């Protein structure tokens, strides 16, 4: 039962982030491969700030979210001027820098071994109820993300963002600040990542570079691609599939290393099939990548 709650919690954490990331990836058509950075900032932020004497969970959690937001504003000033595969590669470079930085800055991040969430911030106790409580909070956050993405899509701002995706030059010619909207979208996804990171630290109890490597960023985009962009259902279903496939393989009796590789191969095949034969994903409204070849 505890394991089921753990898997459901992970699903919720990734689903919430995928819902917000869909604003950038789906609605704006920008292939953002750096969500793991904001996710990691939230997780490392809550653990590092939480380890200071006298710190508390609200303070540490707020610090993690603020760090994610500040980083988004800083790098967003550069990234908001980019588009197409330049944006994808620049965000991927950012994910690589972040991963290597947390891996080698051992004094602050604990290096490859990572850091343990301090007891003073969150004492899980030994009951299932603590896990249920976190799951309830995560489920509420997913509900909020669904509500936000649905409301936002129906609002004029949602249509404007779609207009940027379809014709950036035309939108700019109408006096709309494209860069500012991109920056706002990056900030929203970064805050989602920060909140997700805080929840991840509470659920797992340990943060290490493996959870926030470039692969994590790619997985989050893959959840949107597989489930489908531009809807609330798509990212949630996509996150569920990407989280569940490894768990099914875990139960198949294969050895740890082989199962891990087969999981990645299965994920690669699924991603290719979706991209090649169902560009709108399983439940999507929008295709990934609207750019036409010159």
């Amino acid at each position, binding site marked *: 039962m505890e394991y089921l709650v753990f898997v459901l919690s992970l699903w919720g954490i990734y689903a919430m982030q995928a819902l917000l990331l869909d604003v950038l990836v789906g609605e704006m058509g920008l292939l953002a491969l750096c969500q793991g950075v904001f996710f990691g900032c939230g997780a490392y932020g809550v653990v590092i700030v939480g380890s200071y004497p006298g710190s508390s969970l609200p303070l540490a959690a707020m610090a993690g979210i603020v760090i994610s937001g500040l980083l988004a504003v800083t790098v967003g000033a*550069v990234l908001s001027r980019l588009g197409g595969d330049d944006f994808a590669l620049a965000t991927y470079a950012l994910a690589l820098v972040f991963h290597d930085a947390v891996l080698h800055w051992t004094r602050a991040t604990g290096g490859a071994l990572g850091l343990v969430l301090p007891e003073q911030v969150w004492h899980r106790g030994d009951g299932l109820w603590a896990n249920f409580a976190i799951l309830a909070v995560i489920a509420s956050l997913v509900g909020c993300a669904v509500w936000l993405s649905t409301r936002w899509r129906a609002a004029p701002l949602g249509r404007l963002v779609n207009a940027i995706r379809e014709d950036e030059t035309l939108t700019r010619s109408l006096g709309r600040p494209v860069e500012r909207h991109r920056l706002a979208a990056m900030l929203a996804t970064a805050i989602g990542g920060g909140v997700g990171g805080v929840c991840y630290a509470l659920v797992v109890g340990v943060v290490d570079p493996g959870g926030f490597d470039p692969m994590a960023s790619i997985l989050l985009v893959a959840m949107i691609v597989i489930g489908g962009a531009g809807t609330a259902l798509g990212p949630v279903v996509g996150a569920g599939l990407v989280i569940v496939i490894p768990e099914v393989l875990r139960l198949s009796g294969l050895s740890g290393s082989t199962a891990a*590789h087969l999981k990645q191969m299965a994920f690669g095949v699924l991603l290719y099939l979706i991209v090649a034969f169902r*560009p709108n994903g399983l439940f999507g409204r929008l295709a990934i*990548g609207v750019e*036409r*070849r010159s």
Partner: protein
Amino acid sequence: MQLVVNTAIYAAAVLLSALGFRLVYVTGRFFHFAHAITIPLGAYTTWLLMTSFGMPFVLAAGLAALVTGLLGSGLFLGTLAPLLDKGAGPQVLLLASLAIFFVAQHGLAVAFGDDAHAVTGTTAQAFEFFGGRATGTQVATVAVAVACAAAVWATEAYTRAGAQLLAVAEHAELSRVFGIDVRRVQAIAFAAGSGLGGVLGALIAADQSFAPDMGFQWLLPGVVAVLLGRVWHVGYVVLAACLVAALRTSAIWFLGGAWQNVLIYALLFAYFAAKPTRLAAANPLG
């Protein structure tokens, strides 16, 4: 002096990586992440041919380059060209390429295991250059990189095939209108680019241990060199490869070995910060 020699050897490896990536990038006009797999594929093929069939290194490396080139071209024709035909944009192709990379890299890991392998039996002879030392394989890496750069430059500058490649790179549709078999040119470019990746993999295998996940570690410095070298000019790409290698040496010297890649990745990010233009839409020879 040893630092200069080490920088030259690394610059040669970066140059080989850059030349291979550049060929597939200019003709495909998308970031072909799966190109990274050609490097470990070349290393493992060389190792397999040497250990299972007792081939000498030079023959094994040549065959590895051939196998890698054919596989690279076959993968392009079988998986990515159909998407190009459907009018897929660079982002879709990038995602598809990433998916292929996952399958290939983890397929290699399932086939050969996660442990690092090493090729034995290559020459251990060392050469001395003004006080710096390099092994025979390292000298060969520099020679092969220089020869490949010269060959790519001469092909593009003086041959009909090179002119066709640049024409396809500049405007695929217009090239098709003028009777160039665009798909054939792309397939040859992907074969040559993948073959160069295979050569790099073979040379790395002869010099150090290798593992299935080595691809990105060698591809990304090459990508940085291609971008800093303004993509289209081989001479600038050579200079950019030297710059990347010099920066890596500086990072190791001043910050320690652990930070060598961070600087290269930061440079990649800084490139886009300083030059926010769309590479895919840029006029290649302008």
